């Protein structure tokens, strides 16, 4: 292949003056994680509520939560990004819309990106929560009710703690998805890891070094998440409870 490799480029200064290209990319990882983590909080909170609601006997609530899931599942992420970034400020009341539009960079991109990713992922979390609850033996709920707990208390103290443990493996993979998906925020101007690799390619013309470095950073991040989650899983394991992973593994 006729390509001039120059790995030294990673240590050269980037034109913005913040340091080397490598540092520039690592800061990008910082933004990736900051976006992913903030969105994860939203995704977990909404996902838990909506997923739980979908298993309740309350018909209208179930229907409403199903609609929520369908809407955010059937529109591509990048289109949702554009809705949050371009469309929402225009349809909000003028004052609020202007405030969103006038947020200084990078917050003007960061906030819509976090909201978008959070809600986009909440739908997937909700699916996992529902599947997790429905996989529990029915007796668990009944045992709770038999002890005199209310519906709310049964969910809070019996069902959800069990479900959280069952759901750890699927949630790990959702968390890795949110890290990967945060790259879509580059389309609304957020300079996270992929966006910075792209910018580095434009400044330095060293295409493959830029993308290779970004790829390596993503792989390392994945590794750390997997190991971390595995440790967490061991810590919260309930003796005798088959985890979703254990049951699903080949």
């Amino acid at each position, binding site marked *: *292949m*006729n*390509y001039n490799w120059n790995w030294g480029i990673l240590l050269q200064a980037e034109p913005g003056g913040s340091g080397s290209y490598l540092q520039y990319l690592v800061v990008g990882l910082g933004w990736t994680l900051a976006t992913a983590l903030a969105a994860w909080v939203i995704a977990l909170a909404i996902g838990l509520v909506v997923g739980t609601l979908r298993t309740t006997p309350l018909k209208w609530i179930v229907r409403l939560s199903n609609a929520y899931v*369908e*809407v955010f*599942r*059937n*529109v*591509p*992420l*990048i*289109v*949702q990004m*554009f*809705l949050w970034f*371009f*469309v929402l400020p*225009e*349809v909000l009341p003028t004052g609020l819309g202007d405030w969103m539009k006038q947020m200084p960079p990078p917050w003007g991109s960061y906030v819509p990106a976090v909201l978008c990713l959070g809600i986009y992922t909440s739908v997937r979390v909700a699916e996992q929560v529902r599947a997790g609850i429905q996989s529990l033996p029915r007796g668990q709920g009944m045992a709770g009710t038999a002890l005199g707990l209310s519906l709310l208390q049964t969910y809070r103290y019996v069902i959800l703690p069990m479900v959280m443990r069952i759901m750890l493996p699927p949630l790990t993979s959702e968390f*890795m998805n949110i890290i*990967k*998906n*945060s*790259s*879509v925020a*580059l*389309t609304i101007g957020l300079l996270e890891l*992929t966006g910075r*690799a*792209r910018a580095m*390619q434009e400044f330095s013309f060293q*295409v*493959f070094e830029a*993308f290779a470095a*970004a*790829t390596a950073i*993503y*792989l390392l991040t*994945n590794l750390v998440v997997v190991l971390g989650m595995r440790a967490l899983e061991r810590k919260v394991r309930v003796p005798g409870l088959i985890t979703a992973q254990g049951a699903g593994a*080949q």
Partner: protein
Amino acid sequence: MSGFDFDVIQRSVWYLFRDGMTFTVTLTLMAMAGGIVFGTLLAMMRLASFQPLAWVAGAYVNLMRSVPLVLVIFWFFFLVPYIGAWVIGEKTPIKVGAFWSAVITFTMFEAAYYCEIMRAGIQSIARGQVAASLALGLNYWQTMGHIVLPQAFRNMVPVLLTQTIILFQDTSLVYVISATDFLGAAAKVANRDYRLVEMYSFVALVYFVISFAASYYVRSLQGRIAVVR
């Protein structure tokens, strides 16, 4: 905001579908076909008893699944011209349009996901079926082609289709290489006429209707297949 302007949609809708949606749908179908073929090969490799083959396929699948699609799109957008030049023996990178670059990217990327589906499908076929086929004298490829893959494929049709709906939505990311897919076409009109609200809302609506209808169809298919089995 000066009210919702339906007119811009009406003016551009023909262009959006003729250029944009055609691109999107063609890309989806080609990447689906290529991805399922390549993914099935990967699945067979992953299940091969020859360890290096299984390892290579496993590494490929895990790599693709660990990296954001946007980054993969960039990779291939810049890499394919070099690979093309290398294949036909040119010195300088060849020109590859956004469309073919996208077809190659999505085929290679989705293959990793189709691979895992087909792998589960192959593993769901009872071992006795393979034994019976071998006992009749069919060789590995005949056993795969006539006995295992048709059954695996049939069992996995709903999952493969669900993955294809995801692929259909994912193709909108070719926006990052300025391709004129459905979203790209809408973005062009939106920026030209400064009608972002209308165009992006319309795009969201169209994607929603198509994806929702398709998932509804897959779900009903799932019910029917479950009965037959």
